């Protein structure tokens, strides 16, 4: 193991770095338990976590919010609040590091054990430059390094993590960096001292997919450079498939399945893992497959009843599941453990998610069977522009420019149809949605809702009338419901505004609650008494109150955990068929869009770059941006991930206040770089139109359109 074991005894006294092991186990975790005191009783956040981590290996800890995956990593780092009670054992190179005092732990943190946090903005101190913060990481552990030398090392590190112009950027402050760059800086800081273990806590959750792909690549580079073992904490099964060697699945504070990444993805033995995998919409599924719906919610870890914590949600559960919590035991497969007393049954009968979990019946509505052209148009955007003045100054605000948030888009939605509007943050999709919802004339162009031209709306009453048919469901189920109103009042609000009869409202609210799968007798509860998925259902009930024809869905599932998300998607699918609704579905998650949408429109910097039938666009993406976007999305399929070639975009989205001339994508376009100078000139001078591609319902805005398979 260690070639420098002689001074092991003095290692804690002198900050001498041990030789790193290149093979064998670096980190051993045994029976880790974390408990927090709380008003309602002790919160058992982590219960009995065990694993070994070898050098250079990557283990993913997967779980939904509240599963204890982050708490366990903070416990290993000794960064939990003092009121946390931590028991068990964490051994680094064979030395116990759990519950060390702060002085001794500080010598390990950052030097042998490094961590990358989720939110790179709040994790960097705003008042020190990036360089100073990296230098601090270096000099904390080795005072003998002169400042200038440490600064040079900081520049090298920034260069390594792919920050352009590192000599200059090293002097920047965190707020001058974009989210992706900040996360790179965090990675640089984490690897500054060549750590043996890197813990990455949801490192890409706050980032857009194309940036996520870049950062994951940087993480792999960092791991290669340091030879460190990595613990990847994430809820995203796609990320896991792409980066992990081994996987630990956690549920209600407890590991419920452990094994190699292929084992977990291809031979799961615990119903929760199976359900989780079945609940993820697949980007690579051309046939629309139904999603597994996991009913119910993860249990509160305050007062866990005896038995398997997943049993209440498990369709397979038997009375004996409730007697004792099943331990993590070996399965029929080598090096694969699962905490389910029926894992053998699953193995022998080869049960898949569709066998265990209820899946909805996906029959297309009669409407969808009618040809698209014959159906009436419910929403039409004609050359829609929305420009905002860019203001500066606190008291005398003055205009210093224009933000071209939406810069000329044409779209239409037919009855019974779902249009997915996708793009990264800042592409203008939210603005487009607001333009539709506001029912006010845009800067330029026009919005026509159900045949009604918004420029011709003269009065508030007319607008209110039109709003009966146009409703919205928001992204954040907590923020979209007034916490001070009982659910009844929330769902009733649109009807109250339309001055509906009180008794009719009463009846309708109960109807709606039943429709979206909520218990009507819960109408007098407040939103905070419901879980995220249930809150989103309340939001949907409110949107459906007036029997609208068009529903605008603003990232309706992105704030939800995977297992909850599937239920909401299934509900939306079902409602569409039953009520003949049309959806404008705005999302950044292309897998969800592929699952739910009939047509898709890809936006970049206020313009549409590709529009068409969803399967056609996903299988034959023609615009370089669509190709990059699709290729950036990790697939929950380790084998495919290993063989996939990613198109990595360089840099960040340009400011919509100062977009490039000609084709707006050309500054980041991989194809642009392969063109000859004269060919490039066309991209620089002429903004491309949406060209017809000669196939029905597929248009793309590239001068050099060419198909590419990327999934």
């Amino acid at each position, binding site marked *: 193991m260690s070639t420098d074991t002689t001074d092991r005894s003095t290692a804690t006294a002198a900050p001498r770095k041990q030789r790193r092991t290149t093979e064998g186990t670096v980190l051993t975790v045994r029976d880790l338990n974390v408990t927090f005191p709380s008003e309602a009783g002790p919160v058992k956040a982590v219960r009995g976590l065990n694993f070994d981590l070898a050098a250079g290996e990557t283990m993913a800890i997967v779980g939904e919010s509240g599963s204890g995956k982050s708490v366990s990593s903070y416990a290993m780092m000794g960064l939990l609040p003092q009121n946390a009670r931590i028991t068990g054992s964490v051994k680094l190179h064979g030395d116990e590091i759990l519950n060390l005092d702060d002085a001794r732990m500080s010598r390990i943190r950052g030097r042998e054990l490094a961590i990358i*946090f989720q939110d790179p903005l709040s994790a960097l*101190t705003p008042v020190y430059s990036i360089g100073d913060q990296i230098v601090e990481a270096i000099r*904390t552990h080795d005072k003998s390094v002169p400042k200038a030398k440490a600064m040079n090392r900081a520049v090298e590190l920034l260069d390594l993590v792919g920050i352009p112009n590192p000599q200059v950027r090293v002097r920047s402050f965190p707020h001058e960096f974009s989210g992706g760059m900040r996360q790179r800086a965090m990675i640089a*800081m984490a690897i500054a001292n060549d750590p043996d273990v890197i813990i990455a806590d949801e490192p890409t959750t706050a980032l857009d997919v194309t940036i996520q792909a870049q950062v994951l690549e940087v993480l792999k580079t960092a791991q290669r450079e340091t030879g460190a073992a990595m613990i990847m904490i994430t809820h995203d099964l796609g990320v896991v498939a792409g980066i992990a060697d081994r996987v630990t699945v956690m549920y209600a504070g407890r590991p419920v399945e452990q094994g190699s990444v292929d084992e977990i993805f291809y031979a799961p033995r615990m119903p929760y893992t199976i359900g989780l995998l079945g609940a993820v919409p697949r980007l690579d599924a051309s046939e629309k497959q139904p999603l597994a719906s996991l009913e119910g919610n993860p249990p509160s870890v305050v007062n866990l009843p005896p038995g398997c914590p997943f049993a209440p949600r498990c369709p397979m559960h038997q009375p004996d599941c409730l007697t004792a919590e099943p331990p993590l035991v070996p399965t029929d497969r080598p090096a694969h453990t699962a905490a389910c007393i029926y894992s053998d049954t699953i193995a022998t009968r080869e049960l898949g998610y569709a066998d265990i979990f209820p899946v909805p019946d996906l029959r297309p509505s009669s409407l969808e069977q009618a040809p698209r052209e014959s159906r009436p148009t419910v929403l039409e955007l004609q050359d829609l522009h929305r420009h905002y003045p860019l203001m500066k100054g606190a008291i005398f605000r003055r205009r210093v420019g224009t933000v071209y948030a939406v810069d000329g888009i044409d779209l239409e939605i037919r009855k019974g149809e779902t249009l997915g509007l996708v793009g990264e943050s800042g592409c203008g999709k939210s603005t487009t949605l607001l333009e539709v919802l506001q029912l006010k004339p845009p800067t330029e162009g026009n919005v026509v809702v159900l045949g009604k031209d918004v420029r011709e709306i003269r009065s508030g009453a007319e607008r209110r009338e039109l709003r009966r048919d146009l409703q919205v469901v928001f992204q954040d189920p907590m923020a979209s419901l007034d916490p001070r109103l009982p659910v009844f009042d929330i769902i009733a609000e649109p009807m109250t505004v339309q001055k509906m009869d009180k008794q009719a409202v009463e009846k309708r609210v109960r109807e709606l609650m039943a429709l979206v799968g909520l218990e009507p007798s819960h109408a007098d509860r407040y939103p905070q008494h419901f879980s995220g998925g249930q809150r989103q259902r309340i939001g949907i009930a409110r949107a459906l109150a007036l029997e609208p024809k068009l529903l605008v869905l603003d990232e309706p599932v992105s704030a939800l955990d995977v297992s909850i998300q599937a239920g909401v998607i299934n509900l939306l699918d079902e409602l569409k068929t039953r009520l003949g609704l049309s959806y404008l579905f705005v999302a950044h998650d292309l897998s969800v869009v592929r699952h739910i949408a009939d047509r898709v429109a890809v936006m970049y910097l206020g313009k549409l770059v590709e529009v068409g039938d969803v399967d056609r666009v996903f299988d034959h993406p023609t615009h370089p941006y669509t190709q990059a976007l699709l290729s950036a999305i990790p697939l929950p399929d380790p084998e495919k991930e290993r063989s996939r070639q990613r198109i990595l975009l360089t840099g960040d989205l340009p400011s919509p206040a100062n977009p490039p001339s000609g084709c707006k994508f050309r500054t980041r376009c991989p194809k642009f770089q392969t063109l000859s100078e004269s060919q490039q000139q066309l991209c620089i001078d002429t903004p491309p139109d949406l060209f017809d591609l000669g196939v029905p319902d597929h248009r793309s805005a590239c001068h050099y359109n060419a198909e590419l398979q990327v999934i």
Partner: protein
Amino acid sequence: MGRYLVRRLINYIILLFVAISLAYLLAATALNPRALYEVRNPPLPPASIEASLRQYNLSDKVPILERYWIWLKGVLFHWNWGYSPTGIPVGPEVARRIGVSTRLLVLGTFIGIISGVAAGAWSAVRQYGVRDRVLTVISLILLSTPTFVSATILIILATDFNNSTGIPFFEFTGETGQQGTEPLAWLWDRLQHLLLPTLVLVMVNFPFFVRIQRNLMLDSLGADYVRTARAKGLRKERAVMKHALRTSLIPTGTYFAFSVATLFTGAAFTETIFSFNGLGQYGVTTISGNDVNGTVAVTAFSGVCVLVGAMLSDVMVAILDPRVRLS
């Protein structure tokens, strides 16, 4: 940035102009200088009262806007802030009293603020410890005790001390008293007179800054970047000092700048009780003495202080916070 500051300055000047004009109109309507002359014994002839009042632009028989106009011209073109009902020019009086107030206030304010910030940060790190609780209670008590109560209690205690020891150690009237002949006796004398008022001012500023700094510090103690600093290997104390404290000083800096600039406005009680003829005391005496111009001059000066404070706060933020400095 330069243009921005100029615009801001213009806005402030407009604000100030409106505020002072309003103050003039209010004071000229509400205060009644004539009453001062009418209660004289023997009574003055009405014509001579009117003549004196008109001489100082204080006669309520002259339309108020006309008086305002005369006063405004005086201020703008001659920097003449008018006269008291007894004919004393207001401007020089204010200038003299600014000096008195400064000598009284600077020491106590600074000691109070600096010790308050230090104690607040110290206390936040020990949140809910015994020392934190004691400090919190002390600052709550001090915060709830108005100056005229704390000053008077100090005076009662000081008198008791002087009486029981027979040494007139504590002084509590005026800036100076009887001096000895030794060298530096004048300084000793002044310090003796400053001791109690300074203590009172510390008691005003200390608890305020303890609370501000404690709350800010608590906010930044829980910040993610402190956790990052510890994850890098900084010990808890060092992470707190270098990262949490430094960041939490940004808002404190604005309060500090504002408090220093508005030093003069809250001192009426201290000055009155300890008989310092400063600006605060002037504000009170001018109002009870129906001195329209004096009142307006004090109001104007306070207004300027508030705006300078606002400006200084911005400058302070720009110095302390790179997010503001670099955008």
